[in-house]
């Protein structure tokens, strides 16, 4: 029982992390053009955040159609 709960918890943690990697991959391509230094500019950080949230909005609209 505890083992099953542990596996399920780990597995959903992994699903979230794998989604985060895939969103980062997509929004990094969209929001980061030049690599001038290792920090995120304000523009890039806002773009990443908007990119994630509009992607999730798009997903929700399509599921609810």
């Amino acid at each position, binding site marked *: 029982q505890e083992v099953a709960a542990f596996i399920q918890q780990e597995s959903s943690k992994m699903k979230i992390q794998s989604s985060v990697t895939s969103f980062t991959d997509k929004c990094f391509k969209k929001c980061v053009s030049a690599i001038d230094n290792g920090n995120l500019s304000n523009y890039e950080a806002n773009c990443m955040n*908007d990119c994630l949230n509009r*992607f999730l909005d798009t997903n929700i609209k399509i599921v609810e159609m």
Partner: protein
Amino acid sequence: SIATEMATAYATSLVNSLTENCFDKCILQPSSSLTSVEENCINDCASKFMRSWNLISKSYIARINNP
């Protein structure tokens, strides 16, 4: 059941493909909320995509049956 699991996996990949394609076509510059232009575009895009899916499905099955 196995059939349900397979159908779920399939539906997930269709929804993912729809979301990717319509996000790429409609959200060129993501802003702080979906604009009405973007919302209409997503609706039209999803409808165009599903019509394309049905057309491809018919053509593909026709070709499998008459190679």
